[in-house]
């Protein structure tokens, strides 16, 4: 194994292959910066050029794209409150408020450094787990996958602030909207009314852009001025963000490992991992008061997990030939173009290639992050430009991103409709993240519920791993609620009776003065 690890480093060090890796990183950064486009689009773009190419170079380029997108999609999330891709939705929650306070460079610095560490940890985890991952992944059947999706749904409580019922209602709306189109458990189109556009249901990209991008553009234009609030300064830059990441190093490690573990389960999309980690960091934090208002931990945790996820996603892809995500399906296609058969035989016959993939992942994360860090300060100055000049550009890119989904006029109508829904929800303080979580998990919950019921009747409830994940759900929900209540009680006590501290201080000051008077006299 060590021989393969070293020899694969020399393989990837070839200037042409390294150039292809850098090209992939550059494409990934561009695609990530444009809202609505993601790794899937970037990979689809280069797929026709892979025929006849050296396999190692082609694989390096594809991994370069996959690794760079989760880093660069942070730019629109932090600077404009628009998710750059489905994997950076949760970053908006705290990254954007930081940008509005004039701390865009700090937020970006923290996000990119956490991304880099997360990405490298993902690659390391992939290296370490390659020999042992197979039995672990095989432990997860339909009931366990169902419980994991329910674990994702239980985060709704955490994302709902002081009104959990409003959050659950929003999640129910999301679940309902996710039911439109083909039913996962039966040959039936629900609420499509013969409209071909609705047969596949609503696109996640369009729903996310509509819910978050359009309302933000409308509100910023209506308010006037720039994204950063009047009087705010850019902040002392990205180095502060890097320091934040280093200060929260265990947070980065914890969420990177969660990203790898959840990413290794096929079907757990980047958006699920993103929200899961955001919810988890809020639940575990002692001081929750700044979440949603610009807490740097809300940026670090999802970003670290998001990049680490790529290491996890590669596990089922390489070990079983089961694509861990939609972009990995294209990656599998690329491997087949090169005549490589993914699966257990890959580890036996072509270990060099596996380690080239791992090296590419680690190097692409480092290069991608360095480029993004270099760009963070100049790009974050955009937050001080009057938004009326930025709005047409952003609106144009958002519409183009949405249009690429199916290139049907329905994309524009859906974008507008979800924009109106998101804007209304924002105005009436209905939390939008739970709606998105419900929408994302709707199909998965229904599919796994039906599969579990068909395969095991209701006996699946008693499976040990199911019970363990159920316990985790309960602990997270109950623990989160209790902690929230404790914080609220402490805050209200502070508001009602701030006197003891002040009085105590005053008493101490009076005492000091009296002592001084005594000493003088």
């Amino acid at each position, binding site marked *: 194994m060590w021989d393969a690890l070293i020899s694969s480093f020399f393989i990837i060090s070839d200037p042409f292959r390294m150039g292809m890796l850098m090209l992939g990183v550059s494409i990934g950064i561009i*695609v990530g910066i444009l809202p609505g486009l993601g790794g899937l689009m970037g990979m689809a*773009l280069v797929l026709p050029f892979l025929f006849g190419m050296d396999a190692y170079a082609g694989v390096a380029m594809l991994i370069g794209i996959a690794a760079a997108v989760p880093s660069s999609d942070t730019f629109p999330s932090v600077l404009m409150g628009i998710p750059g891709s489905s994997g950076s939705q949760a970053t*908006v929650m705290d990254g954007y*408020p930081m940008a509005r306070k004039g701390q865009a460079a700090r937020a970006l610095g923290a996000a990119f450094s956490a991304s880099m560490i997360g990405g490298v940890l993902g690659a390391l985890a992939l290296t370490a787990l390659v020999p042992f991952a197979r039995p672990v992944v095989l432990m997860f059947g339909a009931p366990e996958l169902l419980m994991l999706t329910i674990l994702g749904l239980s985060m709704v409580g*955490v994302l*709902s*602030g*002081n009104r959990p*019922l*409003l*959050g659950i*209602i929003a999640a*129910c*709306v999301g679940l*309902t909207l996710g*039911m439109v189109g083909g*039913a996962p*458990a*039966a*040959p*039936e189109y*629900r609420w499509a009314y013969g409209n071909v556009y609705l047969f596949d249901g609503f696109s996640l990209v369009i729903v996310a852009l509509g819910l978050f991008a*359009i309302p933000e553009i*409308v*509100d910023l*234009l*209506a*308010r006037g001025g720039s994204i950063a609030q009047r009087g705010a300064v850019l902040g002392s830059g990205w180095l502060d963000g890097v320091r934040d990441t280093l200060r929260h190093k265990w947070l980065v490690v914890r969420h990177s490992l969660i990203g790898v573990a959840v990413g290794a389960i096929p079907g757990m999309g980047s958006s699920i991992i993103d929200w899961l980690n955001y919810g988890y960091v*809020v639940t575990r934090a002692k001081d929750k008061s700044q*979440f*949603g208002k610009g807490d740097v931990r809300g940026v670090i945790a999802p970003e670290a997990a998001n990049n680490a996820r790529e290491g996890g996603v590669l596990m089922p892809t390489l070990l079983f030939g089961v694509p861990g995500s939609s972009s990995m399906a294209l990656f599998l296609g690329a491997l087949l173009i090169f005549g490589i058969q993914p699966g257990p035989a890959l580890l036996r016959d072509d270990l060099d290639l596996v380690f080239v993939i791992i090296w590419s992942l680690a190097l692409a994360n480092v290069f991608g992050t360095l480029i993004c860090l270099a760009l963070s300060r100049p790009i974050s100055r955009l937050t001080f430009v009057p938004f*009326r*000049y930025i709005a*047409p*550009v952003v*609106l*144009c*890119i958002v*519409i*183009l991103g949405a*249009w*690429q989904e199916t*290139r049907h*006029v329905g994309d*524009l109508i859906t*974008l*507008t409709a979800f*924009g*109106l829904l998101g*804007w209304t929800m*924002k*105005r*009436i*303080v*209905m*939390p939008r*993240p739970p709606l998105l979580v419900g929408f994302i998990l709707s199909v998965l*919950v*229904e599919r796994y*519920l039906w599969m579990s019921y068909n395969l095991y009747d209701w006996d699946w409830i008693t499976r040990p791993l199911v019970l363990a994940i159920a316990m985790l759900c309960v602990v997270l929900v109950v623990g989160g609620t209790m902690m929230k209540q404790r914080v609220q009680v402490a805050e209200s006590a502070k508001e009602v009776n701030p006197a003891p501290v002040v009085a105590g201080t005053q008493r101490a000051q009076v005492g000091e003065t009296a002592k001084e008077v005594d000493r003088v006299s």
Partner: protein
Amino acid sequence: MSHDAQRLQQMMRTAFVLVVVALAVAVIWTAADFRRAARLFPVVAGYATLAICALELMRQFIRRRLLAPEGDDVSTADIAIQAEESGLDGLKRGLGVFGWVLGYMALIMVLGMPWATVLFVPLLLHLRFQSDWRATLGIVLGLLVLMWTLKTFLMMRMPPGLLNLPLLP
């Protein structure tokens, strides 16, 4: 936030919950025609939604009428709206801007993306914001270059519109 703005927000929130109730009833009602496997989840989710909406309406009634008639502060893990935008004036301003976005979408559907952009950007910047014409021209040209780049190098397609007018090579 002013008392009026808060009342407006509360009324709109109640209206939203009532719309969700109507949606849940419609889901349960129409799902009756589906096969069992396609019906199970919508019906379960629909009834759950109804129950939660009922709880929320009850909570709103008790809190606003009995416990704290003067206010019902809600804070959620979402990007908060600015205080100055929360009143009726802010609502009107927002709706006005949303009208512009709708207009842009309508123009795209009729004229296609490039022509719609050439028309929309100067109209928005001059009629709504009285901007400098040089900035307007720069943004329009920049957007056309961006669209051409995306079309040429990323093979992205632009919405052609009903008239399908050619502008970009």
